[in-house]
Every structure is written in structure tokens, then in C-alpha cells.
């Protein structure tokens, strides 16, 4: 099991995130991930200062040496995929191969979709995500690549340098369990961040039993033989090891390979940046 922290890109700036990433590395975490939002419109975040995740990830790459870094999650659907290809390759190079790219359809409550005329239709965003991932893979290959999709058209081109990591920068995909199409998308890549869906959207936390089913689905349907991660995000108390272990251990046994500690403290609730720093310094749950 590997352990990461996820931090907001709201109410912090790039330098604070770079310092927190350094603290996380010292405290023994394996990864530091930050939100990729442009401008959240939810009640608790509306009007709050927001930091560009790519500038922040670069600053984090400069203050750390071994933690994995990445945006959690990037919506390629409001970006130009070739631009994302250049950014990720440069960042992978700068971090000496430590970048992970988690992706999703995008949250349309972000002003980056809703207030600037981006695509809001779910089906279309799903198509755009599929095409974006094909384009990222093609451009990262360093080989001549062209693409003629529904949404994107690229004449033959070669993008170099390639990322440091081979065969590619690991891509984690949000998978709506148990929706087959969404799950199949994730299986084509390198990891899944499962989200439990009912008839009307999200239906609560995944239990260890759910994870076992997800794992079974992966074993049955994934054809690639490369490593594949199952990622879960949640909270554990940093000052109660027994409790932390009781949360994480059953998930690890069920097949989770990355536990992401949601360190999203907001000033009015848990002490803001200092609250986040404290939780980070307490380190990951002591499960092997």
C-alpha cells in the first residue's frame, strides 16, 4: 500500500503547497496530489482564492525529491489535449519521472465549465475524455502521430521530449462503479479511482466488500498485464493509529493499492494551512 495526501488548490498558493509537499515527503508519505479546479462555484468555495495547479505542481517538483505528484483530478475536457501533453511531459522531466495524471470527465459546477461556455453534456465530455487520452498517449510516444476524432483533429506530428516515465506517465481514471463503460475506460489505463454510483448519482463510500467486487471485475476484464492501481480517498485520524489501521487495513486487504488522505482543512474548521501541516506531519497510517 502506498500513501498520499490530497490538498486543495483553494485558499493556498503555490509556495505554500510546495512547502506542504516537502513536509509530506519528510513525514513519509509517498505522494502529494492537489485539486485541479479553475474556479469552484460551490457554496463553501465560491469566491475563494484559487491557485493554478500546474504552477503549483512545478513548485512542488522543485522542493521534493521522491514523492509522486499529480493533479487530482484533471479534466482534460476543458483543456487542449496537446497543451496538456506538453505540460505533463515538461513536469515529468522536471520531477525526474514522478508525475501521475489522474483524470475525469470534469465537474461542471466549476466556472471553468459553466461560466465560460465549455461543454456541459456528459456524453460529449465522455467522448472528449476518451479522445484526449488517445491524444496524450499518441503525443507522449515521441512517434509520428495524427488523430481524426469527433472533437479533435491533429495532423501528423512528433512531440519530443517524451516523458521520463516509460511506457507512459501513469494515468488514473475515475471509474463509476458498477457502470460498465466507465469502468472499461479505466481498465485501459494504469489505475482506477472508483466512485460508487446508484440510480441517482453517487451512493456513498465504497466498502471493502465493494472493493473486492471491483477487483474481481478488473481481474476478469483487464487485458493488459502492466501494473494497475486501485485508489481510494478518505480520512484517518493522525493521532489514533489503531483507528487509522482499522479503516485502512480492510481496504488494503480487499485490493486498494493507494490510500489518499484527504487533507482539505479549511480555516474555519480545522485550522487552515497549519491544520493541514499538522495532519501531514503525523504521517500515514502505520499499515505495511
Amino acid at each position, binding site marked *: 500500500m502506498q500513501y498520499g495526501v490530497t490538498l486543495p488548490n483553494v485558499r493556498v*498558493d*503555490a*509556495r505554500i503547497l*510546495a512547502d506542504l509537499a516537502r513536509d509530506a515527503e519528510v513525514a513519509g508519505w509517498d505522494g502529494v496530489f492537489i485539486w485541479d479546479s*479553475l*474556479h469552484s462555484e460551490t457554496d463553501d468555495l465560491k*469566491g*475563494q*482564492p*484559487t*491557485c*493554478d495547479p*500546474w*504552477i*503549483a505542481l*512545478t*513548485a512542488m*517538483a*522543485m*522542493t521534493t525529491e521522491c514523492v509522486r505528484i499529480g493533479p487530482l483530478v484533471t479534466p482534460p475536457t*476543458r*483543456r*487542449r489535449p*496537446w*497543451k496538456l501533453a*506538453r*505540460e505533463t*511531459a*515538461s*513536469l515529468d*522531466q*522536471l520531477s525526474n519521472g514522478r508525475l501521475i495524471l489522474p483524470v475525469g470527465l470534469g465537474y461542471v459546477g466549476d*466556472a*471553468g465549465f459553466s*461560466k*465560460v*461556455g465549455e461543454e456541459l453534456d456528459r456524453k460529449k465530455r465522455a467522448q472528449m475524455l476518451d479522445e484526449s487520452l488517445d491524444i496524450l498517449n499518441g503525443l507522449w510516444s515521441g512517434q509520428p502521430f495524427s488523430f481524426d476524432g469527433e472533437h*479533435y*483533429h*491533429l*495532423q501528423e*506530428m*512528433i512531440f*519530443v*521530449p517524451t516523458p521520463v516515465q516509460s511506457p507512459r506517465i501513469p494515468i488514473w481514471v475515475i471509474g463509476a462503479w458498477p457502470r460498465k463503460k466507465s469502468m472499461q475506460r479505466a481498465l485501459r489505463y494504469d489505475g482506477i479511482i472508483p466512485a460508487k454510483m446508484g440510480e441517482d448519482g453517487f451512493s456513498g463510500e465504497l466498502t471493502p466488500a465493494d472493493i473486492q467486487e471491483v477487483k474481481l471485475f478488473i481481474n476478469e476484464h483487464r487485458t493488459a498485464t502492466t501494473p494497475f492501481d486501485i485508489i481510494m480517498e478518505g480520512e484517518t485520524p493522525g493521532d489514533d493509529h489503531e483507528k487509522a489501521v482499522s479503516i485502512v487495513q480492510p481496504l488494503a486487504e480487499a485490493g486498494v493499492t493507494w490510500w489518499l488522505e484527504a487533507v482539505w482543512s479549511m480555516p474555519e474548521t480545522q485550522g487552515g494551512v497549519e491544520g493541514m501541516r499538522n495532519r501531514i506531519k503525523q504521517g500515514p497510517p502505520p499499515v505495511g
Partner: protein
Amino acid sequence: MKFGLDIPTAGAYADPRKLADLAAEAEEAGWDGFFIWDIVFAAGESQEPVANPWVALAAIAMRTQRIRIGPMVTPLTRRRPWQVAREAVSLDILSNGRLIFGAGSGYQARDFTSFGEEYDLKIRAEKLDEGLEILKGLWSGEPFSFHGKHYQLENVTFLPRPLQSPRIPIWLAGGWPSRKPLRRAAHWDGIYLMTVNQVTNELLKLEEIREAVAYMQTYRESPDPFDVGVNGVVLDDAGKAAEIIQAYQEAGATWWIDLAGEDESFEEYRARIRRGPPRYE
């Protein structure tokens, strides 16, 4: 006169850490500005590697304390302006207010047409004007709406504001004797004059710089300072340097921006950067 560098992001330069190290050396040597290209592909049909300028600039901001930094220039027309607005503010804060935002309408067809992006000059000019208004509006920190021909924004408030006030300086690229880009630049905070006359293809003469500056002055609406960046010849003779720089200064230039020579290797240019800007007092 301030002294800046116009640094490639392709070929031997296509490595953000190398660029950050070079910027730290430039700062140490006394240069005032370290500006980098914003391109998708290297010039012509070249298949050279290219670095992403925003990742590189953030790395540069982390390695330097004093030197001004920025893209020279970002083709705003192939980006989403709100995305650029966010990146620029984060970078301005990370660099403690050292960003100069160089903008242009785009200058390499391949960076546009290979992706099916619009490359019609007139439309790019429109998109550039709209994009700059959006940057200004989003950097204000006030509720902002925009209803243009190419972009529509509905009541967006972007925070934080940049560290610099009233805004991150915006310089436009412009080539003499084209008048329209000069009028556009006059509306903002500075111009980066192209090295050569766009008609004769010869190095811009002092007289032409003087004429361009005078032309822009007639269109200035703001009493705030206006920067004029120019490229000149390599100043390897200290005695002559004072004379040449003074002449450029009198013509209206405020930034002397050095370019790598066409046949100068990365290591040769690096050595020249480490020798510092021309000493001329």
C-alpha cells in the same frame, strides 16, 4: 536602460531545470530580465524537443529572487484566456510580483493549423484584443462578464488578484512598420519590437525605433510608464557599448533584450550570459 534575455525553449534549451539554472546564473550576473519563448513546435519543420513555458517559468521563479520573468510572447489566441489568467496570477504571486506578460497574436502557423486552430490574421487580432480584455477583467478581482465575438464569460470573480498593481504589465509584440500592433501596444504597458523591419528584413534602425515610439506616444491614454523592448547588436566592445546604448535610450528604448546568436551553442550563450549585461557607465 534595463537588460533582458530572450531565451529559446527548443533544442538544447528544452529542459525546465536547465532553464531554471540558467536563469539563476543570469540573475547572479546582473541581468534584469529572463524571458522565454512560448511555442508548441520549434521553427520550420524542425522536430526538436520543446519545453512548456509555464512549467519552465514556475521553475525559474523558484530559483530566482530579483530578475523579471515572463513569456515572450504568449500567443494568447491559441489558449483559453481564463486559463492563462489563472496561470499568470499564480506565477506573479510565486515570483513575488516579477512577471511581465508578453502577448502576441501568434507567429508560427504550425502551432495553430496542425490542430485545426484558426490562423486567419484578422480573426487572431480580434481574439487577441478580446483575450487581453478578459485578462484585465479577471485580474481585477471584481465580478466580470464579457460578451465578445469569440469569448463569452458570465459573471466570474477571479481571486486572488495579481501581486502587481494595477496589473501584471502586458507587453505586446509588434513589428515596424506595421501600425496596428503598435496602436494595440500603446493601449497596454509595453512593446517588444521585432528585431527586423518587417518589410526590408533589416535590423531595426535607431530612426525607426524613434518613429515607432513617437507613433505609440500619440496613442497613449495612460500617464503610467510604457516600456519599449528592443534587440540590438551584440555589444562586445565596452567602449562602444556606452555610445550605442545611449543612442538606443535616446531613441526611446527602455529594455535592451539580448538574443542568442544564430550559430551560438547553448554553452557559448551560457558563457556570454554569465559575463553579464554590457557595462557601460
